């Protein structure tokens, strides 16, 4: 299945549709993580609909680009995107976290087509991606490995083992994408575990780091970040995306309370129109 190339505005709208799908699902199921799902929606949409070299009809094609969602609690957004892209049958998202479902609370590679690595316990993704990217290098750099982390992953000591090791082995096609929304489960990153100056930390570990961060909710900005990536001749590379936890629903944005709280009827009825109104504005453009 080959998707028609979408404009950035169409990608923007597509990501918003996924937010709506996810909000409805989390409301129906009364379980799941809204905040981190909303913040990663645009990045995931860009990757799956524009960037990655993948074959929906052959999910295990050897030279496919890999995507590891290390912040596995954003699984509903990954499932929404995989369903939208055709990896999952239409309607799969409605079985989120159900007993016997193919889509688990956190991603499971052996149950869900298109999921490259099971995640959930934080901090694993970059190490796994480093291993994949070293195999890519052995195979003439035949594929990219993208790893998406949030602050929680970067709190884990293992991430820094991997950042150090990636600096040493320097695989050309390992790309770390930081969904930097600066809010964790218990509070802001500043309160819980400050990461700044984050870009400087990567530079100190011998990574390629752009001069600036990019807006992870603007497709033009995301596109620019990948233009920067394509100009790199060495690896590893990191792109830090400024994002907003809970993006798209005013009273859920930037709030740790909406990291994983169930979406009740009152909140759902207020939230849904905000998302649909914004979608309508993008669809008109």
């Amino acid at each position: 299945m080959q998707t028609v190339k979408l404009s950035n505005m169409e990608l923007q709208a597509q990501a918003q549709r996924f937010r709506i799908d996810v909000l409805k699902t989390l409301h129906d199921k009364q379980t799941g993580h809204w905040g981190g799902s909303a913040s990663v929606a645009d990045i995931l949409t860009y990757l799956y609909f524009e960037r990655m070299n993948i074959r929906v009809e052959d999910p295990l094609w050897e030279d496919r680009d890999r995507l590891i969602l290390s912040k596995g609690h954003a699984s509903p957004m990954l499932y929404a995107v995989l369903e939208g892209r055709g990896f999952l049958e239409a309607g799969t998202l409605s079985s989120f976290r159900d007993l016997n479902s193919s889509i688990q609370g956190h991603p499971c590679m052996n149950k869900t087509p298109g999921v490259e690595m099971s995640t959930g316990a934080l901090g694993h993704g970059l190490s796994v991606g480093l291993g994949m990217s070293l195999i890519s290098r052995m195979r003439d750099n035949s594929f990219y490995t993208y790893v998406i982390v949030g602050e929680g992953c970067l709190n884990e000591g293992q991430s820094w083992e991997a950042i150090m090791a990636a600096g040493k082995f320097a695989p050309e096609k390992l790309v770390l994408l930081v969904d930097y929304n600066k809010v964790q489960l218990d509070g802001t990153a500043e309160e819980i575990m400050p990461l700044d100056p984050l870009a400087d930390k990567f530079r100190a570990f011998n990574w390629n780091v752009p001069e600036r961060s990019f807006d992870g909710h603007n497709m033009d900005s995301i596109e620019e970040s990948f233009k920067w990536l394509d100009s790199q001749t060495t690896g590893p590379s990191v792109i830090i995306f400024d994002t907003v936890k809970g993006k798209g629903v005013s009273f859920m944005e930037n709030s740790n309370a909406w990291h994983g709280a169930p979406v009740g009827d009152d909140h759902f009825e207020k939230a849904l129109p905000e998302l649909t109104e914004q979608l309508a504005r993008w669809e008109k453009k």
Partner: protein
Amino acid sequence: MEKAMRDAFGEALLSIGKENDRLVVLDADVSSSTRSGKFGQVFPDRFFNVGVAEANMADMAAGMATCGYRPVISAFAIFLALKSTDQIRNVICYNNLPVIIAGGYAGLSDSFDGASHQSITDLAIMRSFPNLTVLALSEADDVEPVLRQALEIDGPVYIRMCRNASPVLNKKEPLTIGRAQVLRSGSHITIGACGITVPMALAAAEELEGEGVEAEVLDLGSIKPLDRETLLESVSKTGCFLSVEEHSVLGGLGSAVAEVLVKSRPVPMDFVGVDDCFTESGPYEPLMEKYGIDSKSISRKALGLTARK
């Protein structure tokens, strides 16, 4: 004649690596100790020294395994089992990825380095993970055949090895995954051992013969899967079972056997192993004796056990 398992390990990686270009080896800055460095010298492109970072190493290997390669991760058993527990559980085993986890310097064999380096809980941890095959090798001659068997399995395998030179047993056949090997027949007691304690169990059986006790000795190095059939057949004949291991008596081989016997054929049992305490530095053999892992302790417990039948 004696030979160290780690020497056999280094040689085996090299010979298998020549045949299998998808074999990759990772080590955590102990490759000169574990001997995995031999592979690295010949195949530098397929060898990754990741520094002292076992957690990262285990997950890197998992990523490589998803791409159709066959990684072996090598480090001291205690650090693999404890510093990369989450990675082995949540990534390697949960996804059933074919990673070989080679734990060297197991049990008390890193004797002078002391309790911080002695691995007495690795079997308990590894045994509890679904999908994982758990093996404790009894001699250097087991190493290459077991590595080859492990590479045939489409899932993860934990292989426990001793640091020091140990007796070559001249067994009829090497350890076979899923099978117990009867090394000596007897009718009064079954002594099931694994790893470096197998020769001790054989020595104890000699001693017991002088006391009129005929001991059957099993090499139970395939701890998971455990050969229930051979085990039950043996205890049906002997009526009691003594487990012997260089590990805590909590959760290791003895526990694995007890889980089988209590359900299918309860018989009097006793355990030789570290008795739920931390160990210490010292020369290997006296250290093992102090913590009750030697042929004399095996004989004494065996006599006590036969009296309970």
